[in-house]
């Protein structure tokens, strides 16, 4: 430790906060609406004909329909109206970037700049249905057909639920210990507080007809060829298993983390006080994962958190709403700067060095101006990548890929007979929970048609 330092280097410590503060920091970020608030908000809805919000929802939820049911006090009917199109309506109500989807399309946005709070109303409607003792959907008579689903995230489980409803027997294979995918492992705690993701998985499985095998990974414990042989159809909803590297000097230093790994650790922690966090944090990236790690680092007690993105605010994949949320949580966002190197001291990272960028002729270039940010920890959140290796048989992928992900048609059908795919692992995937749910639902309907035919 350098004697001239006021604080030890690196200044990384657990238990920075009191138990009460941890509890408050990781509680539900948007508390649910009270009944009277929900009715007032529901009554703001114009009940549009051919409503733009429905079209803006990837799962096509009948939004005016469910909101009208809230207004009349038919909350159970509202919940069912949502869940029949989107079985993950509960988590989508919490994590959807509604400000770029349904709420952006809401005619009240154009009229007054103040849309109906569709996400909050969706949560109000779905919470009681998810908490009810009886699952609202029943299975059709058994078809005797068997479908394998690889990946227990929103895409896989949405597919499994719809197939189960249609009478097929489904087995879900999940590499991790728990189902839920990013809802369980990858999203900020305060968005899905109180183990909501687990409760929602239990709700989805309660339809029946879904066997679950966790800790089983494609490519390691079973092969695609086995699945195609053993099952009538296969759905791949494997998500993105890899993370992009910075490819700059110092990436291997201690204190440099993949954001997704740290979030996973946080989400699985029984006690947030056990999580060591630096005093000064640098986050590199511009997506929701970057926002989630930056805000959660702050809420774990980090003093200075700076998020650095190589392009402008408009180019960030995190929405304006998310950026503002980070800023109101005390995260400083610096735009138009790319990492040059990470420098260390005593084996740990000490500084992140950036170069300002500009766009020239459509290309991002460094301007040559350099600045450095002191850092006890650096989080990399520059994107995740699809890992195709588990699909390989004898060294080459069995499936046609496009842009590094699985190529599918409009129904989610891959190039391979009997195999469908959806969610983040497919080409054109939008890294949206709600899109993954739609992919799974749509593939399930296509699988059902093919099995019936």
């Amino acid at each position, binding site marked *: 430790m350098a004697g001239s330092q006021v604080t030890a280097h690196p200044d990384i410590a657990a238990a920075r906060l009191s138990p009460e503060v941890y509890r408050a920091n990781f509680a539900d970020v948007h508390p649910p609406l009270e009944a*009277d608030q929900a*009715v*007032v908000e529901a*009554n703001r809805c*114009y*009940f*549009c*004909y*051919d*409503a*733009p919000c429905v079209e803006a929802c990837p799962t096509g939820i009948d939004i005016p329909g469910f909101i009208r049911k809230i*207004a009349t006090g038919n909350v159970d009917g509202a919940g069912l109206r949502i869940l029949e199109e989107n079985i993950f309506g509960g988590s989508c109500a919490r994590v959807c970037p509604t400000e770029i989807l349904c709420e952006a399309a809401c*005619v*009240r946005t*154009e*009229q007054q700049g103040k849309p109906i709070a569709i996400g909050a109303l969706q949560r109000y409607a779905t919470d009681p249905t998810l908490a009810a003792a009886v699952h609202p959907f029943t299975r059709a008579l058994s078809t005797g057909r068997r479908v394998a689903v690889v990946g227990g995230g929103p895409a896989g489980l949405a597919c499994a639920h719809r197939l189960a409803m249609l009478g097929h027997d489904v087995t879900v294979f999940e590499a991790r210990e728990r189902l839920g995918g990013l809802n369980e492992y990858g999203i900020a705690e305060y968005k899905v507080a109180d183990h909501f993701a687990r409760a929602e998985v239990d709700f989805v499985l309660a339809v029946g007809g879904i066997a679950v095998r966790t800790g089983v990974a494609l490519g390691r414990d079973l092969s695609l060829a086995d699945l195609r042989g053993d099952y009538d159809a296969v759905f791949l909803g494997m998500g993105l298993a890899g993370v992009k590297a910075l490819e700059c000097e110092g990436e291997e230093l201690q204190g440099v983390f993949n954001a997704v790994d740290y979030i996973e650790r946080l989400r699985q922690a029984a006690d947030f006080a056990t999580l060591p966090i630096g005093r000064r944090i640098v986050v590199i990236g511009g997506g929701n994962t970057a926002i989630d790690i930056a805000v959660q680092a702050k809420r774990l007690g980090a003093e200075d958190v700076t998020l650095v993105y190589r392009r402008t605010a408009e180019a960030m994949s995190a929405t304006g709403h998310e950026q503002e949320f980070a800023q109101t949580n005390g995260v400083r966002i610096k735009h138009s700067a790319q990492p040059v190197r990470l420098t260390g001291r005593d084996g740990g990272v000490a500084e992140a060095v950036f170069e300002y960028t500009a766009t020239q002729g459509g290309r991002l270039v460094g301007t040559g101006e350099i600045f450095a940010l002191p850092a006890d920890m650096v989080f990399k959140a520059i994107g995740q990548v699809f890992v195709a290796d588990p699909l390989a048989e004898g060294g080459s992928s069995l499936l046609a890929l496009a842009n590094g992900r699985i190529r599918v048609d409009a129904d989610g059908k891959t190039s391979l007979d009997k195999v469908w795919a959806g969610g983040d692992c497919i080409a054109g995937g939008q890294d949206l929970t709600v899109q993954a749910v739609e992919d799974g639902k749509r593939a399930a309907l296509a699988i059902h048609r093919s099995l019936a035919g």
Partner: protein
Amino acid sequence: MADLTTRFAGFKSPNPFWLASAPPTDKAYNIVRAFKAGWGGVVWKTLGEDPPVVNTCSRYGATSYKGNRVAGFSNIELITDRPLAINLQEIKEVKRDWPDRALVVSLMVPCDEESWKRILAAVEETDADGVELNFGCPHGMSERGMGSAVGQVPEYIEMVTRWCKQHTRMPVIVKLTPNVTSILGPARAAVRGGADAVSLINTVNSIVSVDLDLMAPEPVVDGKGTHAGYCGPAVKPIALHMVAEIARDPECRGIPISGIGGIESWRDAAEFIALGAGTVQVCTAAMHYGFRIVDDLKDGLARWMATKSYAGIEDFSGRAVANVRDWQYLNLEYKTIAAIDQELCIKCGLCHIACEDTAHQAIASLRNGGGRRYEVIAGECVGCNLCMHVCPVDGCITMQRADDGSRERNWTQHPNNPMAVGASPVDGAAE
């Protein structure tokens, strides 16, 4: 700013805003608070003969509309449940302390001359400015042969009004019940009996809602309920119509009218006055928000009057009466079609679905690329203006004149009317 001073059937008040005979005017305490807040007059809650009536728990029902409370209001409260002597004493004190305000005393006693004579003498002792005969109360009292039991029988109205005019020097206002098929029967009877003015409407017979757990009408009194008197914003259109009918009736012409029914804003008041009211009476809005609403009632009305260059209430009182016609005298040659301002349109589609499902299939739902566009099909539009009402954007849909204004023909002149009287334009008032 305009002068709101009101002279009405022998009453004078600094403004036309009176509190109606109702719970807010049951005691000196409330009325003094109202006068301090600026109300121009009050009608003291109805006095009756001792022993006083007994009231129930609960007494009120209300309609909420899309989260807005008290869009309609109902009550089963009876007349004052305080001893007559206490009320008379308080009336005397209040009138002494507030000589510039109109203080009217509402009365309801059994339908015999002696009863009325007796109570009128007692009220005169208080120096109150006048009396209002409660012929309207639809519950509780009517079963005892009072209130609307009198108000629904024109002969009784005339008889009692005549007694009152004989036995008091005070101006007599007759308060009318709307629970009749035509308001003109009772109104004309009041005029024949010598009434100095009429006031209307009293409350409308109603069951405001049913408690679906108790399976009982609200307000629920120990598991049971009864019909109640409906009032508040929901009844304003009914009241406006009845006021207009009296204002344009030749037999009632000139009778001062105190307008009552759902008045909550200065604009409501202006509408009543335009249809012939000289004062307005308010209850539900005060019960919802307190007496302070009178501030904007006065201020808003005076400012609006100034923009129209009306110096006083009488300058616009009754101005809209001549434009209230029987349907058969409306110009059937006047044509409009809807116009949608595409710049203002927010693409909610409500105009289209309303017209498509329930009117004339005159608004097309179009898509150009991903964008929605709603367009009026001029050849199909009948100018009904349903779309304008359902559009949530002010000024987005307007009705544009489609005829050249050169022709005028009403139903009495129309060839489709077997009873048509010929080509000469005929106008006429009601009846």
